[in-house]
Structures are given as structure tokens and as C-alpha cells.
């Protein structure tokens, strides 16, 4: 094996008194991919910036960072600038802000070339266009002259990658390179990264919170918790033989796209510790199901378990290895869930919707329709320019969609950004006459509602938003937040109800006097859920309720939602981009593309045997947290970006990117180009809007 190109040892980063990174060390060799996995606050991004020497001046960094044997930590700026961009380069998380808004993309890439190579401006520009071509930007010569805001998120990330590989670096550090992107775009970008690596032979350090991304991409994985590496090893060792309870918890809490049926997820209790006040001993002790007294005494070092390449920082790692404990055994899944239910008293629910209501027993057709949407259309004007505003077109955000939700049922509305799922949700929430089509809530057509009826109907339909911090007024106490819907709808018994609600979502009623910012993300989302339930609604619209949460926290909220639905007989419209979460929560799923429903039906059927080429591509693009499966999966890569919703393609909207369309004969294609396919039921509960639908297993 070759010498490591990047060696990091004993890296320590302090911001004032806070130790954000505590003694992290790793090395990568040419051509190798190291995945660094951790939740927010684990110090993984700070580690990356420290290696690049890009932390703000008030950060104190100690330890050692060797690049091809040269120590670069604390080196002079001249040395650093010579290395940065040439030997080591970086891809940042947010492609929207990573490019300077006032310069052309091509110029910014050419700048990266000219910093390190003695070439003329023209030569650099030629190289920039080549690089754009390499990262798969169509029409690179012309696109190089565009400004960053004219690029989509995926294209910007490609441009950043082009910049990173411009000088043929030895190491590329990727800090959550695909987190801000949609899954099909993520698949494209990961593909580009792989290609770039092949081209340059560089080592890649891949920082991510997504265990799926790393599974198929990395050779080795390092797990970080509270600023430290807690487990390192070959990717298979980490995924199949984890030896640190945190790693196990992380793996157990990820909703799996490939897991059928509704098995409760394994949340890790509690919250990640604040770097400012770490618990004594092993920082995971307070959340660890296997913690013993000795754990709180001293922080365990990273030590080898089963073989030299696999290290874990846990005093019980040997024990876990000996008995080969699985995450489920360590976290005692069934017992934990049972215990929580027993502890919470059954609240007074709607009499008609007692605990007896289940999705399965009564057949779907026999249950009451809670929400029905027919041929819903929402167009809005597209304006351009901030100073010289003008209308340039019409966005066809939602263009004729139909679905219904029955009592006690969850419909997952999925799709990538720009597909119109959130617009659909907002249109329903407005309770006003849509531009076209009808919306009926609990059998009442909203177009016919008076102001008073509308307010009354709001009681039966509530919403939980994506960002738990943004959805709670920071100036109000939890009590006031929960009492607001009650007061608005004229209920007097706010005090007791608030206590009930907090109890219902698993929060301490004694905390009612606190402010939202005093709670962690997961707890805030529970407050949001409690507020939605305050008026005992029948239908709850969930707008990406868990996508802002870390996986270990997300699992707890997902379980709570499922539990509440069952106990209170709620119906959910669950809007999400994460198809794995939807598989866990939903009975039925509707896949949207460019304002239309591509496929709708029973979750098991749609996931098990998707028929629309878009559903197939979408499902295949989602990485599984399972290295063996990932390596053997065939990924359907879509070409290009989502077309602008202002100019949807004629006929079938998906045809411009459709792999199926490409395989058709010219004669067959005519139908796709000319006729917009309607959703046709093809199976008992599965409908597809495709002229040439065909079953295909992709998960």
C-alpha cells in the first residue's frame, strides 16, 4: 500500500473554552475514500475546516496535519495557499452560497486554474470549459458564461467540484456535498465525484450525516460523536459488526427504504451533548443503553476490536464483540416501545376514533373520506429581477392532481423540490376556492365556505411544519404556544389541555413556562405536534416534519407520529422528500413530478414494484445504509435537471429525462410527446401516469 497522502493526528479545535474537536486522527491514501459520519454538533465539519486551515482566526487549533509528509498546521500563509486548491481541495455543503454571486461561473473556475498554473487567461478559460464538461454540465462553453444564480443547485455543486479538481489535487475533502440536493441529483453528483476521483486518483474524505451515502461510496468509515472519533473501521465492519453502542444506535435509527412492514425505529434516547458542557467520562454515557458506572469515570480511548483495522472507543466493546450483539439486542427495541406506551395514560380521544381504529381491519372503501382533492390546479406568476421586477411567465406549480385520504390513513406525498408537493399542502391549508378543481375537507367543499365555517373547519385540520424552530414563535412560552389555538377557537380550559398535550407528546408538563429555544430540535418538533393536536383535529397535514432533525432524534418523532395516529385515529397527509421515512409512516403514497402525480398507490406495492419510470429512478437513487446491497445495486441515473415548472414539456412531463422514453421507438414516442398521461389504475391500489408502465424492482 502507498504512503498516506493526508495524515491527521491529535487534532484539537477550541472556540474560547469550548472544545469542538477533541483529539481526532485519521489518514487517507491515494485513491481511498474515507467516510466521516456524525450528527450535527459532532465536530465533523470543524475538523475538515481545521485541516484546510480555513477556520476563523479566533479558533485555536493544535495537533498535526501532514500533507504528503509536510506539516501544514500553523504553516505560513504562503505555504498554505500553495497547497490549498492544488494538493488539497474542498467541496462545500451549500452550493447556493459557495460561489461568488457577482462573477461568472467560468471565471471562477478559471481563477482556480490561474492561481496555481502559469497560463494565460484564454488557456485558463479553455480549461474551465473542459472541467465543466468533465463534471457533466451540458453545453459547457455557453454555461461557463452564466452567473451562479442562473445555475440549479446540482449544477452549482458540479461547478464547485470542477473547481476542486481543477489542479489535479491529491486529497479532496467533501463536506456534506449532497445534503442540500435532491436524491436524483445527489446520485448524479456522487457519480461525478466518483468520476473525478478516477480521473485524478485523489483520496477523498467524505463528511456526511447520511449513512446511506457512505455505505456505497467509502472504503473506510470514521464515526464521530461529541468532537471525537468513537469508531473507525472498514465500511463492512462498521455496518455489519459495529462495536460502539452509538454506531449501533445510529444504524438502528435510520429508516430503511428496503424494510417492508411497519417496524418501529430505534431512537437513541436524549440529545447529543453540547460541546460546552460534556458529561464526565464517555460523552455517550447518558444516552447509552449499555452504560455502567465505569463509563462515567474516564473517557475510553480508541482501541482495536476484532482485528487491527477496526477501532472502537467503548469499554464494553470487547464484550459486544464476544457476544456479537446486534443493535436490536443492545437497544431492546420491543421492550422500549412497550414501556413507553404503558407509561402514558390513554388521553381522551374522539369517541369515534378510539384505539380500535387500525388501518388494516376496515377495508379502505368502507371508511369515511377525510380529504379529497380533485383536479387541483395552482399557477402563479413568475417574476424576474429584484429592482426591475417584471412578469416573465407562469409557474405551473400544481397542474391537476387528484387524491383522497380516508379516516385513519396516512398518505405520503413525495417528490423532489419543485414538484409541487408543498404548494399542494398550502392550497389545502388555505381553505379557499382553488384556481381549478375542488378540495373537500371532511366532505365539505372549501369553495363554498363562509368565513365562520372556515374558522370552524380549521379545528379539524391542523398542520405540523418542517422547521421546528421556525414554526414556534420564539417570543412565546410553550404554554402560550399551545394555548393559542385553544383561545382562538374559544376554548376556556386551556390549562388542563396544555398539560394533557405535553404529556401526550412525551414532554414534561412542568416545562410549559419555557421558551422554544430552550428545547432541542426533537423536543421542539414535539411541541409543534402538540399544538397541531390541541383542537383534536381529524386530519393533520405534516410538512416534512422530521427532515430538519438528526437521525437519532428523527426516529423518536417518527415513532410518536405513528403512535398518535393509531391511538387518536388521525389521518395524515405526509409531505416529504425522504422516501425511506414515508415507507415507515405511510399507508399509501403519491409520487409527484412537475406538478402532476406520476404514481399513486399502496406503499408496499409502489415501493415493491414501482411502475412509473420516475418512481423507479427515484427509488433507485436513494442510497441504502447497507454496503453489500449498495455495491450490487443498479442505479437508474436521470439526465439533467428538473425542467422549469414555467415551461413543462409537452405531453408526458417526464419524457425529457425518462430512461424508458429513450428506449422507445419513434412511433411509440409520439404518444409521450403528444398525450399527457392520466393516472390509470393498473392494480388493486396502484395507479400510474405512464403510457408504457412496467413493473420493475429497484430497491
Amino acid at each position, binding site marked *: 500500500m502507498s504512503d498516506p497522502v493526508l495524515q491527521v493526528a491529535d487534532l484539537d479545535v477550541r472556540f474560547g473554552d469550548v472544545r469542538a474537536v477533541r483529539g481526532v486522527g485519521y489518514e487517507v491514501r491515494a485513491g481511498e475514500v474515507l467516510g466521516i459520519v456524525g450528527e450535527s454538533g459532532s465536530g465533523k465539519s470543524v475538523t475538515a475546516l481545521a485541516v484546510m486551515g480555513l477556520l476563523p482566526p479566533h479558533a485555536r487549533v493544535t495537533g498535526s496535519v501532514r500533507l504528503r509528509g509536510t506539516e501544514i498546521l500553523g504553516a505560513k500563509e504562503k505555504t498554505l495557499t500553495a497547497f490549498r486548491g492544488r494538493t488539497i481541495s474542498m467541496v462545500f455543503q451549500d452550493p447556493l452560497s459557495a460561489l461568488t454571486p457577482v462573477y461568472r461561473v467560468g471565471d471562477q473556475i478559471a481563477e482556480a486554474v490561474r492561481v496555481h498554473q502559469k497560463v494565460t487567461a484564454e488557456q485558463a478559460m479553455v480549461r474551465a470549459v473542459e472541467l465543466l464538461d468533465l463534471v457533466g454540465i451540458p453545453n459547457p462553453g455557453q454555461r461557463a458564461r452564466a452567473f451562479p444564480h442562473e445555475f440549479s443547485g446540482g449544477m452549482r455543486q458540479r461547478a464547485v467540484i470542477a473547481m476542486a479538481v481543477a489542479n489535479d489535487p491529491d486529497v479532496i475533502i467533501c463536506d456534506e456535498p449532497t445534503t442540500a440536493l435532491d436524491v436524483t441529483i445527489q446520485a448524479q453528483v456522487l457519480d461525478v465525484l466518483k468520476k473525478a476521483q478516477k480521473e485524478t486518483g485523489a483520496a477523498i474524505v467524505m463528511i456526511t450525516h447520511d449513512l446511506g451515502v457512505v455505505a456505497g461510496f467509502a472504503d473506510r468509515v470514521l464515526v464521530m460523536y461529541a468532537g471525537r472519533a468513537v469508531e473507525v473501521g472498514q465500511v463492512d465492519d462498521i455496518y455489519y459488526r459495529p462495536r460502539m453502542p452509538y454506531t449501533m444506535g445510529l444504524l438502528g435509527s435510520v429508516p430503511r427504504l428496503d424494510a417492508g412492514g411497519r417496524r418501529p425505529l430505534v431512537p437513541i434516547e436524549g440529545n447529543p451533548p453540547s460541546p460546552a458542557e460534556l458529561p464526565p467520562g464517555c460523552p455517550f454515557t447518558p444516552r447509552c443503553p449499555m452504560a455502567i458506572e465505569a463509563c462515567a469515570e474516564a473517557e475510553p480511548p480508541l482501541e482495536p476490536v476484532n482485528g487491527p483495522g477496526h477501532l472502537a472507543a467503548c469499554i464494553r466493546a470487547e464484550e459486544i464483540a464476544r457476544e456479537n450483539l446486534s443493535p436490536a439486542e443492545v437497544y431492546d427495541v420491543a421492550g422500549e416501545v412497550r414501556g413507553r406506551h404503558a407509561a402514558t395514560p390513554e388521553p381522551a380521544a374522539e369517541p369515534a376514533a378510539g384505539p380500535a381504529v387500525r388501518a388494516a381491519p376496515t377495508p379502505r372503501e368502507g371508511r369515511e373520506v377525510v380529504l379529497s382533492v380533485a383536479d387541483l390546479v395552482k399557477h402563479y406568476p413568475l417574476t424576474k429581477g429584484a429592482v426591475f421586477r417584471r412578469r416573465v411567465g407562469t409557474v405551473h406549480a400544481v397542474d391537476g392532481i387528484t387524491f383522497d385520504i380516508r379516516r385513519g390513513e396516512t398518505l405520503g406525498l413525495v417528490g423532489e423540490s419543485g414538484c409541487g408537493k408543498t404548494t399542494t399542502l398550502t392550497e389545502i391549508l388555505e381553505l379557499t376556492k382553488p384556481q381549478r378543481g375542488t378540495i373537500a375537507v371532511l366532505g365539505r367543499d372549501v369553495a363554498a365556505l363562509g368565513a365562520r365555517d372556515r374558522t370552524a373547519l380549521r379545528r379539524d385540520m391542523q398542520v405540523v411544519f418542517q422547521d421546528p424552530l421556525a414554526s414556534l*414563535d420564539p417570543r412565546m412560552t410553550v404554554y402560550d404556544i399551545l394555548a393559542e389555538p385553544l383561545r382562538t377557537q374559544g376554548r376556556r380550559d386551556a390549562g388542563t389541555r396544555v398539560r394533557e398535550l405535553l404529556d401526550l407528546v412525551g414532554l414534561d408538563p412542568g416545562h410549559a413556562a419555557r421558551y422554544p429555544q430552550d428545547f432541542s430540535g426533537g423536543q421542539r418538533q414535539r411541541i409543534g405536534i402538540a399544538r397541531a393536536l390541541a383542537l383534536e383535529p381529524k386530519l393533520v397535514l405534516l410538512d416534512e416534519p422530521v427532515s430538519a432533525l438528526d437521525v437519532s432524534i428523527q426516529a423518536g418523532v417518527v415513532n410518536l407520529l405513528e403512535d398518535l395516529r393509531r391511538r387518536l385515529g388521525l389521518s395524515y397527509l405526509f409531505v416529504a422528500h425522504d422516501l425511506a421515512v414515508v415507507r415507515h409512516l405511510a399507508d399509501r403514497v403519491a409520487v409527484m413530478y412537475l406538478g402532476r402525480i406520476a404514481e399513486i398507490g399502496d406503499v408496499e406495492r409502489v415501493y415493491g414494484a414501482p411502475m412509473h419510470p420516475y418512481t423507479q429512478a427515484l427509488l433507485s437513487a436513494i442510497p441504502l445504509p447497507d454496503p453489500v446491497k449498495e455495491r450490487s445495486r443498479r442505479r437508474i441515473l436521470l439526465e439533467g435537471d428538473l425542467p422549469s415548472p414555467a415551461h413543462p414539456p409537452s405531453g408526458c412531463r417526464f419524457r425529457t429525462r425518462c430512461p424508458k422514453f429513450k428506449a422507445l421507438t419513434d412511433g411509440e414516442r409520439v404518444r409521450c410527446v403528444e398525450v399527457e398521461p392520466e393516472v390509470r389504475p393498473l392494480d388493486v391500489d396502484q395507479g400510474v401516469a405512464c403510457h408504457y408502465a412496467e413493473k420493475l424492482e429497484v430497491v
Partner: protein
Amino acid sequence: MSIADEELAEQVVKIKAPSRGRVVARRFFTMRQGQLGFALLALMFLLAFAGPHFTHWTYTDKDFAAFLRPPSAEHYWGTLQTGADVFAVTLRGMQKSLIVGLLVAVVATTLAAVVGAFAGYFLGWTDRVLMWVVDLLLVLPSFLILAIMSPLFAGGAWVLFVIMLALFLWMITSKVVRGMTVSLKEREFISAARYMGVPAPTIIFRHVIPNMSSLLVVDATLNVSSAILTETTLSYFGFGIQPPDVSLGSLIADGSKTAVFAPWTFWFAAGLLILTVLSVNLIGDSLRDAFDPTSKRGS
């Protein structure tokens, strides 16, 4: 910076939640700048309102035995050409300036908050009409209008002066408030309130305006100083507070003529004015930092 902040942000506060007001106050008072500004302003108020009790001269008295005399035991800060006691008239001027400044700031900021929030919340025609009025007031030369109206302010009608001054100070803030309201409206807690059926005016007063309180408090503070400065300038040219009442502006105008050979006629008024405005600005700036959770200054 943002990465580190982000990573540090996800923490659970375990201590009993102190109220926001107290947090801001604590941050404010740990800043040296804030302490200084507050102490200075308190001193100015004390001087302006308690000071006159320490001399038997009032601002209307004329000592015909002492014209343009330097400071002495009888006239602490000397006398003017008219024989008026500089100490007495300066403190009277300060009282006027402080009261005018505070009132103008309250009126202007309230107006800005309400107009901006309604325009930003409702958008459409409400917005167009309100913002047109704002544009009109921005185009109207305020100094000129106030100057023209100055004869109306004579004879104790200084309240009208306060209202007119406030009328020309709120527009830019209200544009800022409007912008913030537009973005606040996107925030989900506003949507949540809407979707539970809370009426729009209630949302504006319960959710929108309180969530801009930091901006508004800071702005009100800074409006105090702009009001004092504008008042001074107008009074300097004889367009503000009308005789026999005095203001720091009219005193500075009189004093500047004699400043070369009788510095006390100019510097006491000018110095106190500068200290007052400086203290208000220091408070405003520290408050901004105290309200801003991402600020690195303070605790």
C-alpha cells in the same frame, strides 16, 4: 464562522429559562459600551432635571450686572450677551431636547412598526398605498416643510413640532419593517397561527411586531438621537423651538457668534449636546448587540 456556530447551536439549555428581557439586559450591562452609554445618559437626565435646583437663576432671568461674563461662583457657566445665565438656559435647552427626542422616537417608531407591518403583511393594494405615502414623504423635503411650518410652533405648540418631526423620521424604518414582515410572514409560526384561524390584525400585533422588537428598540434609540440632531439644526436656524423657550440648537446658534472670544457661550451647549447624542448612540449600538444572539461581544 457559520459552521462553528451551527455546530454549537444544537445544544440543550438545561438551566431554568430566564426571560428574554433579562437575558438582553444582562448582555447589555456586561458591555462596557452599554454601561458607559447608560451611565452617561442617566447623568445627562440628572443634570437636566435636577441641575436647575442648584441655582437661583431661571432660564428667563437676565442679570443686567453681568453681560458675557466667564464662569464664576455666581454664574457657574458664565453669562450670555443678554445677561442670561448659561447654566440655567443650557439645562433648560437640554430638558427640551431630551423630551422632544424621546417623544419623537416613540411616535416615529410606533408609526413605522404599524405601517410597515400592515404593508408587509397584507401586500397588494394596502402595501402599494402605504408605500406610496412613504415614498412621497421621502421625496418631500422634510427640512423645508418643518422650516416653513416653524411659525406655527410658537407659543407652546411644541407638541405639534414633535408630531411633525416624527412624521418625517419613520419612513426608512417602516421600509425595513415591511421587508422584515414579508420574510417573517414566510416563517412557519405565522402560517401556523393563520391556519388555526387567528385574525390578521391579531397576528400582526401578537406575532409580527413582537418579533421585531429588537429592531424597533434599537431603532427607537437611534431615532432619539436623530430627533435631537434635527431639532438642534432647525432651532439653530430659528425654525424649531421658538423664543422665549430655548433649545440647545438656538443656544449653539447664539453661542457660535461669540465662541471665539467667549468660549463658554458655545462649548457648554455644544458639549452637552454631543455627550447626550453620543450616550444614546452607544446605548443603541449595545442594544443591537445584546439583542443579536450571534454577536460575539458581551457574555
